[in-house]
């Protein structure tokens, strides 16, 4: 099971970024055929193909997310670099498949959310059974002392269980159109993800109400102030090959995966901090961050972004991609690992 799962995810998530790349064949120097084949491939393989993506941005949406609605693009963004989050899912846009399965239609394989739910359900059942067994034992003791009537609690609970099977919900009728289900979900890109796809990789076109947004406009709306600090940290870790995703569920700015969520747990949680300003946080604040991150077995890193103050940058001056690059070139990032150390627990 584990082996086939690994094989499957290795096949699905081949590309680390939204580019289609033809790998070169293995070169065996003492084999002329291999050398010829290699040279042929080197000269005639197609250049890495960008996967063009269209997103929309609503300046009035407080979530600041760039939306991607096309279903195949949503899937591509997820499979090629784990960008974005399904608006109705935990991360991978899996709402459609899940709903189909829940309503008894064929929806393909189980999503990660469902596997989690299944695991939690099993644990709940286990806990309930253990609890029941304990109560039954206590009850048996009372019966033995002649203080209670003999009752089989486990059978009673099983009877109650049978009545409580949840039917299909009323709202579900509104989802069905003909014999298919309406696709409600879209993919949300964080501002830094959208900027990275647009200006870093050049694969995303963002449009708002007035058509495709210029570089200046998207920088102004997606990279102002604190967002620039976040973007620089995001760009930095993406450049180093990490898969960077939002760390909101752990109360941090980002979490870093070695390859991506299906492969292993995130190793690091990152807080992006602008270093040249004295951001005042109480000591208990950093203790809190460290505790939450520590309790999920990750390492906490503070990414100190150094360079011109993001609040003072003139964003209207950034008109071309080279202006943007020149701005980024003025910044550097220092990562500092922070861990909670308790002297009286660490002493031998």
């Amino acid at each position, binding site marked *: 099971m584990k082996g086939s799962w690994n094989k499957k995810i290795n096949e699905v998530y081949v590309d680390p970024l939204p580019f289609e790349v033809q790998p070169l064949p293995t070169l065996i120097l003492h084999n002329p055929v291999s050398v010829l084949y290699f040279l042929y491939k080197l000269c005639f393989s197609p250049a890495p193909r960008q996967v063009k993506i269209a997103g929309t941005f609503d300046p009035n949406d407080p979530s600041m997310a760039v939306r991607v609605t096309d279903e195949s693009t949503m899937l591509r963004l997820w499979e090629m670099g784990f960008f974005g989050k399904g608006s109705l899912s935990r991360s991978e846009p899996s709402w459609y498949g899940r709903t189909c399965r829940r309503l008894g239609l064929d929806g393909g394989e189980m999503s990660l959310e469902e596997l989690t739910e299944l695991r939690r359900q099993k644990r709940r059942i286990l806990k309930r059974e253990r609890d029941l067994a304990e109560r039954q034992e206590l009850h048996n003791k009372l019966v033995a002392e002649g203080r209670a009537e003999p009752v089989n609690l486990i059978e009673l609970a099983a009877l109650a269980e049978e009545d409580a099977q949840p039917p299909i919900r009323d709202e579900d009728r509104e989802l069905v159109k003909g014999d298919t289900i309406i696709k409600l979900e879209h993919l949300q890109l964080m501002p830094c993800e959208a900027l990275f796809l647009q200006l870093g990789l050049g694969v995303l076109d963002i449009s708002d109400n007035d058509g495709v947004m210029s570089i200046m406009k998207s920088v102004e709306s997606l990279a102002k102030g604190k967002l620039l600090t976040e973007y620089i940290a995001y760009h930095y870790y993406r450049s180093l090959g990490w898969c960077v995703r939002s760390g909101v569920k752990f*109360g941090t700015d980002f979490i870093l995966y070695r390859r991506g969520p299906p492969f292993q747990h995130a190793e690091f949680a990152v807080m992006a901090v602008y270093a040249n300003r004295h951001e005042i946080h109480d000591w*208990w604040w950093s203790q*809190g*961050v460290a*505790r*939450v991150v520590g309790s999920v077995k990750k390492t906490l890193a503070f990414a100190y972004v150094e360079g011109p103050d993001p609040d003072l940058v003139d964003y209207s001056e950034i008109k071309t991609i080279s202006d943007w690059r020149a701005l980024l070139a003025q910044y550097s990032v220092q990562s500092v690992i922070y861990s909670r150390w308790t002297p*009286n627990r660490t002493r031998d």
Partner: protein
Amino acid sequence: MIDIAIIDGRGLVFDVKQIEELRSKHHICGILTGVLPQFPQQNVFMGLPLQLMPEDVWYLVDQDLARLVDSKRAHEEFYKDKEPEEEASSGMVRIASATKHGLSPHSHARMPNPEAYLMYKYLMAQGLYIMPGLRFGCQYMVYPGDPLRYHAHYNALGKSWREPFPVLDIVRSGRLATSVKKNWVIGAESPDGEYRVFSIEWAAFG
């Protein structure tokens, strides 16, 4: 009257009787910070003096339960008129002798954060016990009774009414508190002067 010695801005209590009174009468526990002279790195079984939070110090003075003592001056004046022999026999210096070296204003004591102090006063008025939350990554730990008898029920944070703060803080603090079976409580004084608190619990769904 409780004598709080102010040394380097910190409020310290050196008298066991007064510490007992603080704890049993005023719901203030403080933290013992003293070490044995031979073991300056000691970090368990601490002894006198008891260190109070800045909020504790201000609260006690505001309620007229304590007075602040300029420890250095009291010490110097205590020794000024004494002969060396007398000094040796007098044993430990009692800060209580500071009656006449009282420090009237709060000036030398460290200031608590004003928003936090409002929360502190609100919780004190409910008869709760408050301890600093550094160990748990929150502003205050709030106990329903003596911390030796109860676990904390809340992690508390005081804000001002219109103060913006990152949503990440809600996620983190809620998660933190729930993972140790507590509630995260955030409060502020509303414009009509009423103190309002909200408790937030982390519900893992999905």
